[in-house]
């Protein structure tokens, strides 16, 4: 009797995990196979357009992959020194600087995108003052990428590199550095020949995360992209124009390609093997070593300065500029001083934007709370399943899938799965938004729980509890769950902030129930700058507060 109950519970849990989390990420790809005929007719042999769609798809994919690749390369170059400082140096205010570095991971991306936009292009931003004339059309020569998009992508992804690499550096023995130096190597040589090989696995998995994030980034990109169309933006546009076939095909290509790229790297870096490579042929070492010695001796200040500048320009400056601009525009326009152009007038004047904003805020709160709530309920048994069973690691790996699937592709997948083309149960609305957010919230919470479980050696205490006579359920209730509670809560808050800031998927699935972060995009596009400033500042302040709460809990 009791055994049947257990099996039933496990079955319900497994089915809900599968349908709510895994299925949406994979549905789009299978759809491309199932509906191949229709896709072929529309994209490859369209009677009216020929292969225009195909060319557009390839063009956006080419742009997105190039963008992601160059973003990651710059992330690594700029992020490594910062990671090194965090891992090896101690100074006052290090905590705060580390927090600032992680801000782009919690701030709603559309708000951050808007902050970057006004920093570089508006009259209240510093670069206009410096005489730099940059706008959304500015293209970087040589690599041929839109400048602002690249900047935003770097801001939003470099924390992944810093986070994973500094964690790995903390685990390597700093005495290697001393030994290497005592053997005559300069700091730079030591880094290249000793430290870098040791942290390569983490560097790779950090790069994979950064790459996936850049590939799927929608919210900020929509705001700064101008006329450039990246793959996730193309999906959003086509879906909104009801061109489902090319959107679905592009989405599944995006998912498939990111898998093809990410899985081998993840597999390689998860192998516990020695990574031994040499970047330079031994016969050429002499020249490089001498160069490194010179750089180490004369340019040592570059590391600190570059890291500081990176943080300032990429993170601090946009936030400050946004808050500053909001305060300047609050009750008057900076040039004319007219009240009619101020934020207060836009919000409370005849256009009554405040109604739109407050409705979006309420929607967002409902979405984020419910999505997080549902995710917590799915996550608790998932964590137990992962740590307690043999097949747990497979689930853990599978749960990385929703994290690398570009969110706009995910949104499309949700519509096709649940809407009238699929199960025909839920249509774009607040409810579909909640279900969509569950897909990427569960992995975040589960990962927090599992890593706390492993780090705190909960298994050891569980064993003790069992030897003292506790049943399995006693043990879960009195030992396992209480021990990982803090990290679980922190993971949940992180999921909440993700949900609050999510734009790419939400755009497609929200129907008429606009959330606050998508509203920012709409406001910018419709030139309601005052309201956009207000909403972005609000989002960033909320994210900062939540980050503070996470800090307090995990301390």
């Amino acid at each position, binding site marked *: 009797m009791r055994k049947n109950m257990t099996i039933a519970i496990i079955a319900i849990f497994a089915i809900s995990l599968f349908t709510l989390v895994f299925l949406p990420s994979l549905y789009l790809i299978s759809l491309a196979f199932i509906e191949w005929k229709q896709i072929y007719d529309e994209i490859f042999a369209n009677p009216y357009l020929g292969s225009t769609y195909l060319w557009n798809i390839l063009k956006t994919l080419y742009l997105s992959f190039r963008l992601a690749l160059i973003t990651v390369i710059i992330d690594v170059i700029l992020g490594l020194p910062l990671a090194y400082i965090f891992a090896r140096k101690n100074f006052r205010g290090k905590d705060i600087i580390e927090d600032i570095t992680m801000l782009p991971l919690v701030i709603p991306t559309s708000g951050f995108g808007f902050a970057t936009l006004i920093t570089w292009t508006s009259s209240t931003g510093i670069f206009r003052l410096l005489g730099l004339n940059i706008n959304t059309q500015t293209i970087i020569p040589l690599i041929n990428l839109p400048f602002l998009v690249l900047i935003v992508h770097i801001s939003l992804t470099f924390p992944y590199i810093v986070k994973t690499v500094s964690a790995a550096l903390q685990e390597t023995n700093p*005495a290697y550095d*001393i030994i290497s130096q*005592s053997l005559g*190597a300069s700091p730079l040589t030591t880094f290249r020949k000793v430290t870098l090989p*040791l942290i390569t696995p983490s560097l790779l998995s950090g790069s994979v995360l950064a790459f996936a994030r850049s590939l799927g980034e929608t919210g900020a990109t929509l705001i700064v992209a101008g006329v450039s169309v990246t793959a996730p933006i193309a999906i959003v546009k086509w879906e909104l124009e009801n061109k489902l076939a090319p959107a679905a095909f592009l989405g599944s290509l995006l998912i498939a390609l990111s898998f093809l790229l990410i899985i081998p790297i993840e597999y390689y870096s998860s192998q516990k093997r*020695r990574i031994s490579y040499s970047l330079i042929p031994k016969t050429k070492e002499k020249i490089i*070593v*001498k160069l490194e010695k010179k750089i180490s001796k004369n340019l040592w200040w570059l590391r600190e300065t570059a890291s500081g500048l990176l943080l300032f320009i990429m993170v601090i400056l946009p936030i400050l500029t946004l808050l500053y601009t909001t305060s300047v525009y609050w009750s008057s326009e900076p040039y004319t001083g007219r009240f009619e152009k101020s934020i207060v007038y836009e919000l409370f004047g005849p256009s009554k934007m405040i109604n739109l904003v407050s409705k979006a805020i309420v929607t967002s709160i409902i979405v984020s709370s419910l999505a997080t709530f549902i995710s917590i309920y799915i996550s608790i048994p998932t964590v137990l399943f992962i740590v307690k069973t043999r097949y747990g690691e497979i689930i853990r790996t599978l749960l990385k899938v929703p994290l690398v699937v570009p969110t706009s592709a995910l949104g499309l997948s949700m519509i096709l799965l649940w809407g009238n083309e699929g199960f025909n149960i839920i249509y774009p609305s607040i409810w579909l938004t909640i279900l969509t957010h569950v897909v990427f919230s569960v992995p975040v919470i589960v990962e927090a729980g599992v890593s706390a479980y492993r780090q705190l050696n909960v298994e050891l205490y569980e064993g003790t509890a069992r030897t003292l006579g506790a049943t399995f359920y006693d043990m879960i209730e009195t030992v396992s769950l209480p021990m990982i509670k803090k990290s679980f809560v922190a993971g949940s808050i992180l999921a909440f902030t993700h949900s609050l800031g999510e734009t790419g998927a939400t755009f497609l699935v929200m129907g008429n129930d606009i959330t606050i972060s998508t509203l920012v995009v709409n406001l910018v596009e419709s030139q309601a700058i005052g309201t956009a400033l207000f909403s972005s500042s609000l989002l960033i302040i909320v994210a900062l507060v939540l980050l503070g709460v996470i800090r307090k809990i995990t301390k």
Partner: protein
Amino acid sequence: MIKIPEIEVQNITKIYGNIVALNNVSLRIRDGEYVCIIGPSGSGKSTLLKIIAGIVKPTKGSVYIDGIDVNNVPFDERGIGVVLQDILLFPNMKVRDNISYPPLVKGLDYKTVNSITSEIIRNISLTVLTERFPDELSRGSQQKTAIARAVASGARLILMDEPMGSLDTRSARQLRHELRSLIKDLGLTAIHITHNQEEAMSVADRIVILRNGKVIQVGTPQEIYFNPRNLFIARFIGGELNALEGKVKEIIGNYAIIEIESLGINIKAKIMDKINIGEKVGIAVRPEDILLKEKSSGINTGIIKSYKYYGFYYEVFLDVNNTVLQIKVPRKRWFSPTIGEKFDIDIIRAYVYKYPEEGLEKAIAYE
């Protein structure tokens, strides 16, 4: 002829915050010597090693290598090889690449690097292991490789901090002799830090004992064992000690007749401090310096309270007039102790010191 450096440490003091790690330490290490620095944890031995290596700067005092003050010479230019407890071979490089690392990173050209490396590999007979990674080596081979790597950097002085690490006793015993012969064969000077007195006794040419940041005795193992300068050293070198209180009855040359009231006996002890007749003194008697007599005659008799069996000897706790003495008794045909059995004792060697101000207990504490 390769010049082997002579190291001189002069009046080194190191203060961390308000903790004095080293207090006015002076030391001279000769060419080709194998010196062990030994002391309880917190005695400052690692700090001293780091100062000689140049990893840490002293608060006061100087280090001289071949008569040159090296205080301002950075540690990568001192020609010193450091082998730490974790050995720290670069895990991503094969044995050969570990050894060729120092000449490579100094910017020598490829041919020179290769010939230096090959020569060292041949000298240290690592030829069969060159293509292995460090984690595929035994601890002994790892250490050999670490020394080879240090030699490749041009080091003629090797500093080793607890090189046996957490090795089990049996392997550590074998390894430390291999290590010593390697260093002697290569004609290197070595400073070896350990907390294990047995290890130090068995490999060192000379031993330096540190306690609370001060050098308290320097000498060959025999010198220190037979002339411990204070009660603490008498206990630290040798392991265990019976510390007793007594009164000087008579002085004959280097020896004194001491009355030990608690045992009710008089003994002859070697004078280690300046003492006067009638003065209260501290006496050190090692457990191996007390003999049990086969037949009890009723004089100097004690009763066995408890004993432990160690195979080749017994450790016996003998109650003599309510004072318990610890005695090591080698296995003998006639001796199979039972609790309550009576034996006479004979103290064959003892040392007498001024009575310590802090009391006997504290004077011999390891802290």
